[in-house]
């Protein structure tokens, strides 16, 4: 167990990435009670946006200098896809039965994957994402890769900015009102269509940041990364209490830690020797989800439905 600091650090880093993506699920759900299952693909598009920015720059550009541009393009692409999905896929179904937007989301996921597979150069196999060179950093007894440092900075900055936005700005207040009672929000003069677009855009922007973080962490991206990333982030959102932005981050961190610790230590428990290692990490993630939902169906920070009436 003397690698505990290392496992905790890996878990937090992974969890911060899940949390950033989970924001996208939870914001949209909070406003329109829709699970945007295409969100993972919105993240994936962001990753290819970031890669495109890198490829456009002259060879030999330092990654540190390139990073801002990569972020801008990743966030820009994600936001465009997110807004487009809202406008053309979900808005026409606003008053349709709930199953219709859900199926549309799945269809949209497949379409977005196939667009990259078909049209992005050499995207039929994984593409290399630029990496920070140099030694990993020693931090509180753990070795953290330079690319992962980005996530440790970006995630808290994004969360604090979002918390401030929701609590303190006029649009943030309108967003809270819309999520609690959309019809009455309209009576206040709030343009709820614009609020819905804003929720999609913010969620997608966070996804774009997470996409760059993913590329820097793993060193390669492909057209399928959105699937498992989206599934994990959705799990994180539900775990934390869907609809609650802080819940999304907490859910992400708990999920990341659980995966990391279970992968490393489950096999130390007598009788569990067979269930350790990376092959089982997704199993433990979903076992955790099931256990939490059995005890707290509303998620860690979610309100009970009765409180929302």
């Amino acid at each position, binding site marked *: 167990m003397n690698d505990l600091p290392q496992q905790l650090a890996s878990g937090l880093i992974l969890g911060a990435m899940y949390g950033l993506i989970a924001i996208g699920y939870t914001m949209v759900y909070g406003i329109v009670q829709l699970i945007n299952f295409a969100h993972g693909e919105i993240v994936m598009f962001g990753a290819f946006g970031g890669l495109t920015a890198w490829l456009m720059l002259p060879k030999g550009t330092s990654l540190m200098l390139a990073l801002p541009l990569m972020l801008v393009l990743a966030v820009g692409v994600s936001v465009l896809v997110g807004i487009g999905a809202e406008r053309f896929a979900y808005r026409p179904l606003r008053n349709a039965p709930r199953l219709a937007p859900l199926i549309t989301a799945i269809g949209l996921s497949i379409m977005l994957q196939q667009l990259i597979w078909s049209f992005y150069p050499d995207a039929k196999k994984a593409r290399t994402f630029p990496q920070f060179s140099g030694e990993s950093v020693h931090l509180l007894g753990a070795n953290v890769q330079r690319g992962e440092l980005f996530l440790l900075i970006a995630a808290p900055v994004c969360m604090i900015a979002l918390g401030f936005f929701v609590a303190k700005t006029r649009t943030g207040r*309108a967003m809270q009102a819309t999520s609690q009672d959309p019809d009455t929000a309209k009576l206040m003069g709030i343009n709820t269509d614009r609020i819905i677009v804003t929720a999609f855009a913010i969620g997608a922007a966070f996804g774009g940041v997470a996409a760059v973080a993913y590329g820097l962490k793993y060193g390669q991206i492909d057209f399928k990364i959105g699937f498992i990333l989206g599934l994990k982030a959705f799990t994180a959102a539900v775990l934390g209490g869907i609809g609650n932005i802080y819940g999304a981050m907490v859910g992400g961190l708990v999920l990341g830690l659980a995966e990391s610790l279970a992968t490393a230590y489950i096999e130390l428990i007598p009788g569990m020797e067979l269930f350790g290692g990376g092959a089982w990490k997704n199993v433990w993630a979903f076992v955790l989800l099931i256990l939490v939902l059995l005890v707290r169906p509303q998620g860690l920070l979610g309100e009970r439905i009765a*409180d929302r009436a």
Partner: protein
Amino acid sequence: MPLLEVEDLRVAYGKIEAVKGISFTVEAGQVVTLIGTNGAGKTTTLRTLSGLLKPLAGKITFDGEVINDIGAHKIVAKGIAHSPEGRRIFPRLTITENLQLGAFLRKDAAGIQEDIERAYTLFPILGERRSQAAGTLSGGEQQMLAMGRALMSRPKLLMLDEPSMGLSPIMMQKIMETITELKSQGTTILLVEQNAQAALSLADHGHVMEIGTIALSGTGQELMHDESVRKAYLGED
């Protein structure tokens, strides 16, 4: 020219017509009430006036402008405030935040603050609890908040939908007193009520709605003394 003129208004949910061609007017400074049983189309009428529902046919003229096809979020800017049925306060926002949302389109921070204080003068209990989540208030207090919130837009027309619903007799009386006070201050009010007695006693004009139509109209006093109204709505035989 009346402040609000509704001409041959028809509203449907799918194929079911809930309002089947009604016409009425509200003059500035008047209190006009729509009374009638459940399902008569009163709430549907108010929700159409505030843009939450689209009319099938007919014409709504407010302050000299046809407002049929204006989105709900733009109606309040025209000067109509709607305190909806069931109060519909924002339960997880504080009382002050609820009131601030009522003034969402206003830019005059000083005036908004002044009006919030005015609401707290009108409803002292709200002032005492200003930092509490609105969901913790009692039904009557939530009704006060819903009315206070609607007034925050400084409307030319205040629409109140069933303000006395589900309230204790004492609280109901308090709400009716408040409406009387607003009337004496010159507020134009369109009041929907099931409590016909209370509504008619303070209204200048009343309309009795029955399954989507206006069955009978008159001054508040006329309707209160009308034989059929007394039988149907005032519980006399």
